[in-house]
């Protein structure tokens, strides 16, 4: 499903990743561990397509496609999801609106009808219940 071959990445001419090789098959769960500054986040960001990283060597294939040649949103559509340790705040945009915009961007890409605010709210409540999230706030 995901195959990383000999990946070299540098930031501001400092080499961070030096030849990562990793193959993950569908259905597998992997945890990448290591001390601070060992390049865990760099790997995650490079896979998700964040700017500011220079890929000096190597290749990444995902579901038969060249992952590194895709834009961040194309990778998102293909199923690459990055959970942010510190999600950024966008002033004036509430979480529900953000989530709905993201969901609808995805639905649109898949040729599905956009969810109305009302339908989305119902879905949101259902999922919040599922993960036992407090709905009072």
């Amino acid at each position, binding site marked *: 499903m995901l195959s990383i071959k000999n990946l070299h990445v540098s930031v501001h001419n400092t080499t961070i990743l030096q030849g990562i090789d990793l193959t993950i098959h569908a259905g597998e769960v992997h945890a990448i561990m290591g001390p601070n500054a060992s390049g865990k986040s760099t790997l*995650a960001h490079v896979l998700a*397509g964040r700017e500011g990283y220079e890929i000096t060597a190597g290749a990444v294939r995902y579901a038969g496609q060249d992952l590194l040649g895709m834009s961040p949103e194309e990778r998102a559509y293909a199923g690459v999801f990055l959970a942010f340790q510190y999600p950024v705040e966008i002033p004036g945009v509430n979480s529900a609106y953000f989530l709905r915009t993201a969901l609808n*961007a995805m639905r649109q890409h898949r040729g599905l009808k956009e969810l109305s605010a009302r339908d989305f709210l119902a879905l949101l409540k259902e999922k919040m219940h599922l993960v036992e999230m407090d709905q009072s706030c």
Partner: protein
Amino acid sequence: MNTAATLIDQEYTPSTVEALVTQEYKWGFVTDIEAETVPRGLNEDIVCRISAKKHEPAWLLQWRLKAYRYWTTLEKSAAEPQWANVHYAPIDYQDIIYYAAPKTQQDRPQSLDEVDPKLLETYEKLGIPLSEQKLLAGVAVDAIFDSVSVATTFKEKLAELGIIFCSFSEAVQEHPDLVREYLGSVVPYNDNFFAALNAAVFSDGSFCYIPKGVRCPMELSTYFRINAKDTGQFERTLIIADADSYVSYLEGCTAPMRDKNQLHAAVVELIALDNAQIKYSTIQNWYPGDKNGKGGIYNFVTKRGKCLGKHSQISWTQVETGSAITWKYPSCILQGDHSIGKFYSVALTNNYQQADTGTKMIHIGKHTKSTIISKGLSAGHGQNTYRGLVRIQKGATGARNYSQCDSLLLGDQCGAHTFPYLEVRNNDSVVEHEATTSKISEEQLFYCRQRGISAEDAVSMIVSGFCKEVFRELPMEFAVEAQKLLGVSLEGSVG
């Protein structure tokens, strides 16, 4: 997959947020209509001619002439305002045509059916059908094409309530007493250079009077359009809200694409008597010039409201996306005790646009309150300035002001400037000022894109969030229009 915190999460050069470029102006068409104009240039004869064309009473002509003479003294002493943070080549006031009217105006249309179909087509293109369909939307429209008011819809329906909503010229004929009493009472003819010019040559505009105790049931609206070449537009709007009345008024504007700059110097006067409330919203989308800064409208406008009565309220909401240069400070004179003034503004400058805009809140009455929320967006080489004055007079005890000025920069070639002036002349008033300057961060963009939102949609969402406090002050349908307009004006902004 979970990411751990590492040093990579810090330092970013926001390379994604690039300078804004290329956006086509969609309202740049020219309507091929024969126009009746006065000769180019300005002198007493031109002023008299304009007045004569409108069959004005002698007092009004005298007022115009006083204004003209005052303006010439200013012009001779080169007293055109220089303090604003905008730069432009000197304007040749003798090279402007001060009056242009579609020819059919010779015999004024009595109803919509008589209006030149081409004009109506123009308004359709602008998305403001003058047809009765608008009734459903609850908007009564007065449309100003070049210098004259073309048609006013729903006049009869409003008349049943005693509301007067008509062109300025008509008001001069039909309601001379009201016009004479209030004209120049908020913005005198000698207020400033452009106000004096306007007073001398203003050609038309809207007039509105809401009688005592009446709540205007629909949004009143004026659409301004400059069509003819080399003309200036000088309209004048006067709104009077009598005691215990309420009115919400909307104003929109567009102009064709011309590579020469055109001057728009309007004056708006609002008067609110006891307990009256006026809500004035503007969506200004004059032609901003091309992406190299050629052409575009000089929007030099004086807008002021006077809260004359106690507990009266005036609120200005503006969304400024057009014009090559904007020089505009919708202000409130809070004269009545407990009166309230509000100013909500979004100003966008892209390419080579310049805006110097803000407000003045003059607290005179006791326990007067004012709120200022200003959102400046700069992109491309745009320069955006907030300039505001909050003055608390000695007698304005217990006055209260809150100001918030936020600037958002898109790209690294643009600028945001803030000049707040606060003058407090007593010691029991409270004045607050908050300001922020921010950029769209690469991190915010990446976060959105990682969730499948395209860069352009992400910018548009971030900008809408930034402007939310202002947009929610706009009537619903205009809020949607404003949001779209910002989206369009920023298109192609991110690489």
